[in-house]
């Protein structure tokens, strides 16, 4: 593809910001534990797009290598998070986030 100029880069950034913000809002709104983690994955997705967009913009492929790292982290996080969720679910048979609020001030 040809030279990625700033304006088109902005477009991609728009999408990535949108995804990131939606992920964040999702995390804050939804009370189901799994969906909250899903939303974090959505945030990862936003980041990936921004990474690749900038990599393309700066003609430096490191951005894409970082996507790989992002993926590994996302995968590891998903594994652990879901194991935890299962554990919590077995403990209290509910996925409601507000059930776990014993760390009160």
């Amino acid at each position: 593809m040809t030279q990625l100029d700033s304006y088109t880069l902005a477009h991609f950034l728009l999408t990535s910001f949108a995804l990131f913000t939606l992920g964040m809002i999702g995390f804050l709104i939804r009370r189901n534990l799994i969906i909250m983690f899903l939303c974090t994955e959505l945030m990862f997705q936003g980041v990936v797009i921004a990474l690749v967009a900038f990599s393309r913009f700066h003609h430096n492929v490191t951005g894409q290598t970082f996507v790989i790292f992002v993926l590994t982290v996302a995968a590891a996080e998903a594994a652990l998070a879901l194991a935890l969720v299962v554990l919590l679910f077995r403990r209290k048979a509910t996925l409601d986030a507000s059930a776990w609020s014993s760390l009160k001030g």
Partner: protein
Amino acid sequence: MTLQPAILIPWLPALSAGLCGLCCVRKSWRRLAAPLTIGAIFASFLLAVLVSPAVKPFDPAEPDLAPHVVTLFSWIHVGDFRVDMAYFLDPLTLLMLMVVCGVGTLVAVYAAGYMAGDRGYARFFAGVSLFIFAMTTLVMADNLVLLYLGWEGVGLCSYLLIGFYYQKPSAVAAAKKAFIVNRIGDLGFALGIFLIYSTFHTVSLAEVLSLAHHVEEPTTAHLWIPFLLMLGAFGKSAQIPLYVWLPDAMEGPTPVSALIHAATMVTAGVYMIARLLPVFELSPYALPTVAIVGAVTALFAATIALCQYDLKRIYAYSTISQLGYMFLGVGVLSTVGGMFHLFTHAFFKALLFLTAGSVMHALAGQLDLRKISGLRTRMPITCLLMLFGCLALAGFPFTAGFFSKDLILADVLVRGLSLHQPLYTTLAVVGLVTAFLTAFYTFRLWFRVFLGPTRYELGDEHHAADGAHAAGHAADAHDIKIEHVHDAHEMPWLMNAPLVVLAVGALFAGLFCKSWLAGLVTQSSAAAAAAHSLHAHATLCGYDPHLAMEFISSAVAVLGIAAAAYFHWLNRPAADSVAARYRGLVSLLNHKYYVDEIYDALIVRPLRALGGLCFVLDRLIVEGLVALVGFLPRLLGLGLQPTQQGALQGYGLGMAAGIAILALLIALALGT
């Protein structure tokens, strides 16, 4: 004969005070205290006599300092504020030394007998010799600060000696009262010294006198100096506003009352004004004020003395009254009259106190007039000695008291007439009325005690311990011999000898010493000399005023004695009926116009309440504030606590909102 030996005059009693202090340690050494003190005071007296020829008159006009000042060592030298331990000797000082050491020796001899057997024997004599040290320092002080040292020193000794019977709460209270009232006076005196230093930049007596002498138009500061010094003098010599401590000072042993509260300490105020006359002349109103206060105090005290029943209280009020006379004398610039009355008063008042002491001693502490009568058969010598004293006090013709009081009244009258100021004539009349009252209450006492049917009740204290223990306490018999008093008896000769000397002084001092004393005083202060000569040749409706005043005052004295004789000897029921008719007035006078109660209500109690308030304020407000400052962090913590609810998403929301706002702010900052 140089002035060097004069240095020893104060330091000998100081040494004896130290030694007596050591005597307290061993019981066996107690005996030594009396001879030590008597020896030291008499040595000072001899030294004063020894040094007298070398003393030359001091004229503030041209202060040639050398011959008068004997410097010991420099006490406080800060910048131009130079104060050193130095003694200033001139005829006035000499006179005071004679009085202090002379009467001091006689009283010490008397006290040796009077205090025999008391547990605090050595402590008493330590106090007396410390007092003599302080008094001589006061009298011989070369600068005002040293005078202040003597001033507070005598205050301290009166505190220690009034509170000698420290077991009695009333004695302790009286001692505290005496010291505090003196301290109020001393504050005035100290402020006077500060003002003198800030105006004249020196505190040395000779310089201050000469500078004051040469001042033409006094500034406002000059006006204030005499009034401040006056406050000090009135505090020490128990004049109107600050006299309340003297009657209570009678709680102390009688020799103390005789020496300190009659002859020497209370006259310090008169000496100070006589010494600082040029300073008092700075303000035209100062000396008249002194005269007025003196006269008013004399009258006021005399009226109270009329209705007192306690022997020593009567004499205390009579001392205040006589001091009023002295201030009246000094106030009208008749320093000669003032000092002469001081001289004679020292004798007969000491005599009266000591004879009263003998009566008290004989009747085991009984002092109430109503419970004593007709002791002439039991104690003839004391009766006779007290008679001489009373005659002198009343101003019976040709006694010492007569001459000195008459001189003052004459000078006042003369000043009133010659300067055509009605003020002084009224003061002279007040003086005469007071003379009548003095004669009346003196002989009221004498007739009551010695004449009339002989019946008396013994006091409750043990003879020897003499009030050392409050009623009801068993005296710890093991260390003092107890003579159980069964009846009034005459005093041993050891105690009566000094009384005889005093009696001689009381009777004949007037005749012989007048010219000698006039010489001394006129040499020491030019103003006194001028006034003395002025007074010499004024006229009162054709006659020489002095002669006229002699007739009038002797008439008044005789009249007073006759009235006292009628009421208190021949026709006592008549006195009782008169007293009954004016019951209100009598009780008022007996309660000393309730002045003590007024002072207590107006000053003491509010101050104590203020103290209480301050303490509460201190604990609540000031500590409260500190505690509040300590509490603030905890308050903050409580405020923030609700935000930590443990809800995961709550925190998440907090973070998100934070980031959003932060980004907004950065964008705004970058954007504009």
